[in-house]
């Protein structure tokens, strides 16, 4: 997208390919950011309920890492997955409607913020049990391998999840069987209110991979270009048959853990320090400095994003809810072969 001459991207999910691919990375980050900023308002307005975990500050991770995947690859995510879902192509409307509890939501309102699903896009859901998604990722990858497919399964989880037993079991199993799993550790330095140093005896998480014989890389998760480059390498390694890869993405959440969290445990100065590394500001500056975008282009981008979100919210708001009579629908498959 060059300085205002090209038409503004109309559809958020199918943008006209911009000249400089970095502009699309910027757009995706802005889109996730603005979406979640709107979510905060919608939560205050009690349109969204339950637990909601924001990704604000961490956008470079989803945009960089998921951008390195192909459409055949699978993704397993956490409860902090708005960004993952949006970047993967789940529409803002489907996500919003889900959080509004509407039948047009990507899980028909059954999941809410923590359980966005889009199996058509191989997005195997947000999982709200810390580390609970890792075994699924191992199994998805196992099946792809057994079925002779070259797909990679990317599995997102936090620094806190690394302390769970399941992390260990899954790292070992994936490495032992050389499965095509890309372990994406979003190290935002806190598990709720518990800082990295009070969770882990050794805080260099990427180094852990070595004890499973797994290759790894630690990347500045506030730099979307670095994330993307590292993820492309990692995906190539996994797809090349070299077994799983552990990618540590060093990032920070600018907001509290969830909407319930008064954020008493972090130093304001620390938050301010990290905010100076805002991944959007950083890329924007690079692009502006290099002349790839100008103020008008950015304004157009913001306007398009705002329009997309406005439309999503309006559509979600107008959407119906699931019929209560369908409460137990989907508990089991609708068709079951009977035998014997």
């Amino acid at each position: 997208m060059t300085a205002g001459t090209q038409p503004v991207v109309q559809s958020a999910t199918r943008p006209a390919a911009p000249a400089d691919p970095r502009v699309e990375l910027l757009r995706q980050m802005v889109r996730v950011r603005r979406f979640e900023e709107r979510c905060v308002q919608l939560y205050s307005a009690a349109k969204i309920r339950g637990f909601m975990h924001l990704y604000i500050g961490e956008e470079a991770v989803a945009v960089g890492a998921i951008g390195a995947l192909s459409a055949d690859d699978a993704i397993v995510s956490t409860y902090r997955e708005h960004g993952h879902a949006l970047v993967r192509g789940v529409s803002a409307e489907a996500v919003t409607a889900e959080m509004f509890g509407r039948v047009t939501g990507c899980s028909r309102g059954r999941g809410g913020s923590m359980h966005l699903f889009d199996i058509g896009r191989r997005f195997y859901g947000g999982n709200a049990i810390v580390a609970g998604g890792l075994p699924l990722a191992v199994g998805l990858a196992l099946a792809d391998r057994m079925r002779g497919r070259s797909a990679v399964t990317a599995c997102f989880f936090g620094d806190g999840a690394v302390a769970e037993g399941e992390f260990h079991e899954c790292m070992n199993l994936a490495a032992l069987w050389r499965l095509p799993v890309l372990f994406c550790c979003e190290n935002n330095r806190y598990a709720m209110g518990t800082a990295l140093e009070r969770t882990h005896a050794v805080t260099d998480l990427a180094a852990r991979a070595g004890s499973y014989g797994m290759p790894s890389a630690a990347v500045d998760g506030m730099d979307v270009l670095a994330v993307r480059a590292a993820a492309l390498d990692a995906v190539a390694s996994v797809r090349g048959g070299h077994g799983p890869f552990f990618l540590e993405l060093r990032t920070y959440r600018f907001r509290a853990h969830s909407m319930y969290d008064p954020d008493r445990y972090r130093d304001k100065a620390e938050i301010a320090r990290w905010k100076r590394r805002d991944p959007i500001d950083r890329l924007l500056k690079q692009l502006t400095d290099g002349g790839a975008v100008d103020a008008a282009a950015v304004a157009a981008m913001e306007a398009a994003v705002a329009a997309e979100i406005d439309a999503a919210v309006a559509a979600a708001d107008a959407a119906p809810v699931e019929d209560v009579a369908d409460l137990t629908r989907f508990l089991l498959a609708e068709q079951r072969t009977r035998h014997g």
Partner: protein
Amino acid sequence: MAEITYREALREALRDALRRDERVFLMGEDVGRYGGAFGVSLGLLEEFGPERIRDTPLSESAFVGAGIGAAMNGMRPVVEIMTVNFSLLALDQIMNNAATLRHMSAGQCGVPLVIRMTTGGGRQLAAQHSHSLEGWYAHIPGLRIAAPATLADARGMLWTALQDPDPVLVFEHGSLYNTSGDLPDDAGPTDLDRARIRRAGRDVTIVTYGGTLGKTLTAAEELADSGVDAEVIDLRVLRPIDDVTVMESVARTHRALIVDEGWRSGSLAAEITTRIVEQAFYELDAPVGRVCSAEVPLPYAQHLEAAALPQPAGIVRAAGELVGAS
């Protein structure tokens, strides 16, 4: 008398225990700097320091097991599992160690451990964060299971649990933390043995506990308006069950309804029903009824979740049917 919330009552109980007995300490995810996921332990780290208010890594099996080991070795740990949903990760430790070690060692050691956890649905937290599994835990020999539903029990059960030489699990329903009321300044320990009649009545016995006590009392008032006088029993302790209080009530009312947020099949309500059948069959004028959660993972959407959980209207309906039945 002071106005106090359930959350504050729990905190007072913890503070009191930490002051009275230096063997007591609190351990769990985010109990310290965060102040507890539901704010129960807010301020305790500052008062008692990090040796006694211990933030743990996300390692449910390890820190629950560590609580068991510490309890066997002279301490009186209070372990907080953030919610019952995550307790599955520590269930092996609870079942195969906490509940078993005394018997397996023929009484050579015991596990005077208290495990607290939040339970229940109703806050739109969806399928993985809304379980009501206290009925499951009540199946395990060697444990005592407490479900404080009132301010007095929130304040009073902990100390009693800490005096118990055996493991006690305390289930705090998530909907109760913000409930408030008056509590005497000298509110003391409450027993972990007996059920309580929270509303006396003659026409039907409704047995419940924890998060559904409030809904049941609401239903009882509605029933009263339509001329049905319900007796409401708060079980308080889910293992061992106080059969006497239940059977005496059924002997008076001849009708019983159980209200339980667990999924219907295999619920604690089934156990209570069975005990009534075993012990008071000939007193019954109608089949025992139960109001439980629908057998489905709890959905996020408010209207679906509400439809899945026991509600006053359903309790009124079920009790009304029972009283109508010959």
